[in-house]
Each structure stands twice: as structure tokens, then as C-alpha cells.
């Protein structure tokens, strides 16, 4: 829907400064767009293309490869239930069925009120804590069906303040201040660091 807001454009420019080449900032910038709108909007992709200096098609080409990016609005809370082997062995499929009944949607669908999207996902690296899920990429571990119900009810009633809306990942960003930066320069103009050359044994240094 929308281009990046002025505040987000400033963040995007900071991201650009972290990389020797602009296009490396593409995926973090797509996450920024998704954080802003809850999904990656066409206008945002055009804006990103302008900032990086590539075509909008290139931005979309990268965007569509990655599963986390959605090109249309989804629920405020995206519930990803892992059904890979470790979780399957301990009841993930039953949990998914229960979730489908509780929410009244099939995996891949969104509830009519726009609150929940349910997904059946691959391993989310909490295998010893099966069955598990992520809500907007925050973990819920070792879930009984009743735990799932409580989680959904709490999200509905607004009790869960710890879960941000879909699209927000880390709430802290890396900032490299100019006085602390060692020097991020394009590969074409970056040579051997002086500190390395001066530390080489004398014979190699000749």
C-alpha cells in the first residue's frame, strides 16, 4: 500500500551504511517494510528499489523467494505451528487440528476478524520443547491443547502485551556510530588492513 515512512526511510538509509554494497541491505529493508504495513506492499518495494538503485522487479524477485515475506495482509497474529519430525512425534499434527478447530480456519487461512493467520511450518529450532509454535516469531513451548486455547483467548482479549503485531522482529536495532566504525567501504576500495600487514612476520612483510 504505502512507501516507507520518513522515519523508516531513515532506518533504511542506516541499514545501507552497514554494507559494502547497497543490495546487501535488501532483505533487512524488506523486513522493515513488513514491519511498517504487516506485509510487503508494492509501493514499498518500489521505494526500496529506488533507495538501493535496482529495479522493482529485482526487489520482488528476492522478496518472493523467502517464506517470511507476505505480499498481502495477513492476521495481526501469525501462528506458525511446527509439524516437522520431532514435533510430529509428540503430537504436532493433533495440535494443528485442534488449532484449526479453535480458530475455525484451515492452515494457511486467516480468521474473518483479521486477528489470526494459521500456518503449518517447518522446524523452528525448539525441537526438544515439542510441540511448539511461534506467534509473530515469539516462541510458545510444550503446548497442551488447553495452553493453545488460553494463548488465543489472551491474544484476543489483548492480555499478551509481549507479542508485537505481525512484521516486527527484533525490537532493538544495531547502530554503528561514525566515531566507532572501523570503516565499511566498497570492496573495490578496500585493501589489506594496515594493522594486519604490520603484524605479519618480518620475512613476509618485506
Amino acid at each position: 500500500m504505502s512507501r516507507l515512512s520518513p522515519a523508516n526511510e531513515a532506518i533504511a538509509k542506516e541499514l545501507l551504511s552497514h554494507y559494502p554494497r547497497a543490495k546487501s541491505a535488501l532483505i533487512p529493508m524488506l523486513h522493515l517494510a513488513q514491519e511498517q504495513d504487516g506485509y510487503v506492499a508494492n509501493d514499498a518495494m518500489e521505494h526500496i528499489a529506488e533507495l538501493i538503485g535496482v529495479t522493482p522487479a529485482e526487489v520482488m524477485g528476492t522478496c518472493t523467494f523467502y517464506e517470511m515475506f507476505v505480499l498481502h495482509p495477513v492476521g495481526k497474529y501469525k501462528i506458525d505451528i511446527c509439524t516437522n519430525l520431532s514435533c510430529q512425534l509428540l503430537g504436532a499434527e493433533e495440535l494443528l487440528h485442534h488449532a484449526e478447530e479453535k480458530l475455525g480456519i484451515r492452515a494457511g487461512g486467516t480468521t474473518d476478524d483479521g486477528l489470526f493467520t494459521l500456518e503449518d511450518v517447518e522446524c523452528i529450532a525448539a525441537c526438544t520443547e515439542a510441540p511448539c509454535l511461534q506467534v509473530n516469531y515469539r516462541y510458545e513451548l510444550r503446548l497442551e491443547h488447553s495452553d493453545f486455547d488460553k494463548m488465543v483467548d489472551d491474544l484476543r482479549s489483548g492480555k499478551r502485551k509481549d507479542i508485537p503485531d505481525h512484521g516486527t522482529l527484533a525490537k532493538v536495532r544495531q547502530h554503528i556510530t561514525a566515531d566507532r566504525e572501523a570503516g565499511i567501504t566498497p570492496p573495490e576500495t578496500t585493501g589489506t588492513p594496515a594493522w594486519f600487514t604490520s603484524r605479519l612476520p618480518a620475512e613476509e612483510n618485506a
Partner: protein
Amino acid sequence: MSANGSHTNDYVEYAPGYVDNEGPKIVTSRFGYEDSHTLERSLSTGGYDGLKAALKKNPAEIAQEVKDAVLLGRGGAGFPAGIKWGFMPPVWPRYLVVNGDESEPGTYKDRLLMERDPHQLIEGCLIACYALGLNQCFLYVRGEMAQAQENIAQALNDAYAAGYCGKNILGTDVGIDVVLHWGAGAYIVGEETALIESLEGNRGMPRLKPPFFPAAKGVYMKPTIVNNVETLANLPWLMVNGADEYKKYGSEKSPGTRMLAISGHVKRPGVYEVEQGVVSFRDLFYGENYAQGIKDDNELKAFVPGGGSAPWFFGDQLDIKIEASEVGPAGSMLGSGAIMVMDETTDIVKAALRLVRFYARESCGKCTPCREGTSWEEKVLQRINDGLGRPEDIDLLIDIGKNISPGTYPVASFGDEELDAVPFPPKQTTICPLGPSSVAPITSAIRRFRGEFEAKIGASALPESRPGGETSIDALEVDA
């Protein structure tokens, strides 16, 4: 309490999943602290001492120390880090990329290391950068791991401010930038050339090797080292204590410890730091300090020793010691340290289907044998599981597998039938090992449990069991 009822509650509170087994702690020493991710806790428990020790030596000595310690890569392939570093030609700029895209089914260790002790990882990165003369390091964290991204971002901000990172590290002339980068949900990006493509802002498809060996032509076509999170997390300890001390742990061929995630049907699943080559799978599954037995005291049916891509092991392989040089010749791999245990109640066809489905979903689509083959494997397994299998389906599955991985696929020995093990790794008709990995669950399951496949097919081969009777068979033939 959990859905499976048998979990005990003796986990380290602040690191869900991690179990302190009272063994040596090289990488998990801070996991017991609530504030293990902060700079204060890190500094009060020896954080950045390894970096200080390293900066007193010259870079070549450090690279030699890592080589002497035989620090094996902990990402999957198990290649010695010191030797990998040596492949870099004397060309600058050069880059370090940290592979934190942990997505192998069953693998759960890098996330803990990134969330619970980000400073240890940053310190490891800095030591590697110093040894190799690198200007810049990219810390690539899996997209789904929001907490890990947050903790690393905070840790980097603190480390920059306190002078451990960036310009003039610890008051010296050394300057190294460490940048947090994050992915967006693609398993294939764990493959190092795909990781590099992704870091360059492209679709994460692997590059052909040769010529694109990362050590020679990596990020921006410059020499690049890609190391796993756990590999680098070992460096601070190694710098403080030295290679000789490091080699006192573990076995001669595989020194040090490994983080192993034991999941599935065991009484105490968890992430354990274990000395390599000392403990056997039997100790791990039944030992009091480890998983404490199979769930509900059932019989073990099969287990995956090293992530979804590893051929399965069975009861015959329980006494193999946990180290790459033992597991490989026995027909599988230690891979990413992900051990998944299946007990006698497991439906083997369903388990194989679930793993194969993973590869079908995650295939990037670059190589035809993998793109087409993995989805056909999934379709054929799905119809067997749904009761619509055909008598020729077992041979068909093996045939599809041979198109992705020609020759005899690695497999464990099977005492009852006097079949020998075929050592790892498999051959491949694809650029990367994703496609061949999809063959592992099929080959393992069919070789050992062919009867279960035949039983499901047998029950469905009768025309009257088909929906709509005989006529629908013709319809199904046309469909497929």
C-alpha cells in the same frame, strides 16, 4: 506440564531446552545466568579474555592454534576450521560470514548460543577476523529467530560502545566491523554459497563449486570464510586455554565438545554439551545424565543421528561413539548434532513422509533432479500413506532417489540380514546436498522397514478399497 506427559522439570530456567549435565562446559558456561546475554555478566565471567589473549599474539599464531586444536566445523560437514581458513588466497578485502541460519530439522543449538551468550559469539568472530586479517564480518541470523536478533543487536551496540568492536579494539590499532544481518525463512540459505547469495540481496540459490568456492570467490566475489555459530563460540575458550588444553576434551580425531539436541521419544529431551567421541548413543539415550531412557520405557525403533538429512540408525548402531569419524563410516553423519528418537509406536511411512515433505518444500528449484524429484517422492509417499499406494511404488521411490543421488546410497548396517554399511556421503546430481538429503529417510526406512510400506500398499492394492471401485483406478492412473 507437557503434552507428552513425561518431561521432567530440571532444565536450566533461563535457557529453555538446555540441560546442565555436569560435564565440561566450553560454550555453555554462562547458560545458568538469567543475564547471560549482557555485557556485564559476560565481563564478570571472563568475557573478551580470549580476544585480549589473541591480540597479544600475531594473527598467524592464532590460525595455527586453531589448526592444532583440530576444531571441527559444527555446522554439518564437520570440516576442520583451521584448514578451511588456510584455503584463503592472499587477496583483500576478505570477509567472514557467520552461519546462524540454523534450520536443519531437529537442530537446536545455535539459537541458544545466539540468544543466551551473544558476546561469546561476537568475541569468537573478532578472534577469527583478527587471525585472518579481515575488515568485516557479517553475522547472518535466521529470520525467524527474533529474540536472537534482538540479543545480538543489543550485544553489538554494547560491544561497540565499550570498545570491544569497531575502531581501535581494546585501544589497539585493530579495527573490525561486525554487522548483524538476518534472513527471511529459507532452509537452503544454510548452504554456504546460498548464504552468500542471500547476503548479497539475491534469491538464496547455491552457486556451482568450482569455481565459486567461498574461500576464493565468496561475498562480492572476494575470499570469504563461512563458519557456523558453534564453531566460532569455541574460539574464546580456545584462546584463553590453548590447543593442548582443548585437546584434553573429546577424542583424538574430534577434540572438544559438541552441543547435541536430543528430541522425540525420550524421557528427558534437551540440548546437552557433550564431549565428542567419549559418549555413545546408548549413553545418550539411556544415561542418567542425559535423556534417561525411551519415553514410556518403549523399545527404540530408529533414530536420526545428525539432522533430517542424515540416514537413520537403529538398535544395531547404539554403541557407536558420538564423533564424525565413527558415524560417517557407519553410514550416516553427525551433521548438526540433531538427534531425533523414534520409539516402537512410530508410523515409519508417516515419519519418512514428513521429512521428505520438508525437502520438497525447501528445494530452491535450481537443479531439476531435486526440484522435480523431491516433490515426486513426497507425492508417492503421500499416496502410500493415504492408502492409495501401488505395488510398484517402493521401486519407484528408490528409482526417483537414484536420479538425485546415483549409486548406492549411504545406509547403516543391518545385522539380521548381514547387510554392510555404505559410508557417508552420498553422490549427487545436484549443485548442493539438499536433494540427496531427501533420499536419506526413504532409503533408511525402506531398507529396514520395507514390510510397513508393503503393508500399507497391500491394504490399498485391492480394487474394492479404492474410492468408487475399479473405475476409479483408471481415473487415478490418468491423474498421476
